[in-house]
């Protein structure tokens, strides 16, 4: 009997330990980022760092202003949301409410497949198809830039938006829809005036999840965005994102430059933390 109890406690302990690995990783990464990200910010000065418009890390008089990266990440993500959300949302309404079961299951497998495509493949296709396409269509010298990145990101966030919205819409009780139809509303009126409002927290969470995906993506945007540290003044401007700023220079950086890259990572991390908090907020509301 006593031996059994011991075994129970022992196994309990092992599970706890395994669970703590995740927590430990998060804490470790957070601490590491904060510790290694703060010094450069102090040396450069928070205002110069966050709001400086020029990044010239290898120049003789190095400048470390990351406003171009911050704005690029924000604009790029916003652009991806502007394109990706309407497409993803409408697809979700179609899949959840209109599609016949066969079409629904076929399309859902395709959406899952899209989610499984490695981001380097998105980058590659973007590089070979999208970038030359933009150059031809808009008659610009180089197609690699903000617009190409926005389009690639918009496609990449579709699966998360679609899947999560479909789940939220599927969970709307059929009784609501029946009541609306029985009042003489058409099916489409019913979906948009009853089902979608009833699922709004879940759909909001889907959008936030999409924002998180887009802002954290590095590989695909690196391959299509051009990567010059310009302010994102136009859609065809060659730009650098927060993620690609870190990834692009890390391999040959040293000294203050390297410390500044950690600071960029810290800024990115804060963005993601904020987005996660928003996501949790919406998910909690959805449950209620």
């Amino acid at each position: 009997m006593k031996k059994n109890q011991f075994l129970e406690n022992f196994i309990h302990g092992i599970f706890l330990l395994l669970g703590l690995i995740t927590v430990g990783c998060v804490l470790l990464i957070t601490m590491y980022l904060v510790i290694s990200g703060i010094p450069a910010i102090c040396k450069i000065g928070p205002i110069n760092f966050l709001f400086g418009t020029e990044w010239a890390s290898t120049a003789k008089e190095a400048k470390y202003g990351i406003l171009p990266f911050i704005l690029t990440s924000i604009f790029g993500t916003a652009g991806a949301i502007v394109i990706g959300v309407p497409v993803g949302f409408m697809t979700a309404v179609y899949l959840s409410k209109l599609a016949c079961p066969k079409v629904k299951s076929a399309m859902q497998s395709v959406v899952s497949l899209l989610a499984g495509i490695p981001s380097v493949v998105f980058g590659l296709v973007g590089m070979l198809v999208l970038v030359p396409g933009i150059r031809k269509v808009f008659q610009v010298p180089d197609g690699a830039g903000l617009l190409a990145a926005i389009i690639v990101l918009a496609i990449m966030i579709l699966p998360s938006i679609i899947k999560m919205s479909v789940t939220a819409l599927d969970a709307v009780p059929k009784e609501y829809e029946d009541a609306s139809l029985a009042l003489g509303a058409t099916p489409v009126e019913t979906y948009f005036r009853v089902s979608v409002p009833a699922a709004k927290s879940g759909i909001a969470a889907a959008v936030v999840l999409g924002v998180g995906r887009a802002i954290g993506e590095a590989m695909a945007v690196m391959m299509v965005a051009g990567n010059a540290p310009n302010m994102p003044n136009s859609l065809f401007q060659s730009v650098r994102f927060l993620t690609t700023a870190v990834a692009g220079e890390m391999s040959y950086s040293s000294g203050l430059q390297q410390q500044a890259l950690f600071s960029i990572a810290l800024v990115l991390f804060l963005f993601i933390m904020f987005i996660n908090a928003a996501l949790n907020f919406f998910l909690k509301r959805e449950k209620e």
Partner: protein
Amino acid sequence: MSSIISVKDMCLWYGEHQALKNVNIEIMPKSITAFIGPSGCGKSTFLKTLNRMNDLIPGVKITGDVRYEGTDIFAKEVDVNNLRKEIGMVFQKPNPFPMSIYDNVAYGPRTHGITNKVKLDEIVERALRDAAIWDEVKDRLKKNALGMSGGQQQRLCIARALAVQPKVLLMDEPTSALDPISTSRIEELVMELKENYTIVMVTHNMQQAVRVSDYTAFFLLGELVEFDKTDNIFSTPGDKRTEDYITGRFG
């Protein structure tokens, strides 16, 4: 007096299974007609045929003639949304939308194109008064309807149905999910509504049929066994099966 809904030789199949067999019935305006019968006898299915809610179920096939005010409800030129506006429905489980009390009642009128605030206010108040719930909710019209009790929710659903000014109100066991006090309030309400509306109500509860209805139809295994004045059905049933059912020999 001529009937408002007239059904001749109606049959209904769910795929291969025949759920209704040669139903014939005449529903009289401004009266309460109750459908009784054991579970699975087809009474709810029949009720849902009258406002074509069965259209939504895949594999349903309907034959025969169903007329509302003389028009075939399955005719091509009939707009099903208009039909459902004329023939409202209250469901078994109270199903208010997850929005405010006001928006629930205003949903139908808004759907049918009324946007004028003053007019909407007027319709909402009248519907809530007609459903005998105005006094309870007039101070919290902006509150979420899901915060109300089950009985209140059901009366709100009745108000919501009344707000589109139907002529007929179909009620599918409207009190089966409610406590006895809420049930008797709904019963009183239904009897008041009879002055202006035609009411068709499915009920599990034979006493309820006796208390409120003018006509009773007894369904068994997809057949309409007997249809007559409620008094006659419960005092001198014409069919042996009706007698067995109302005396509690099965069901």
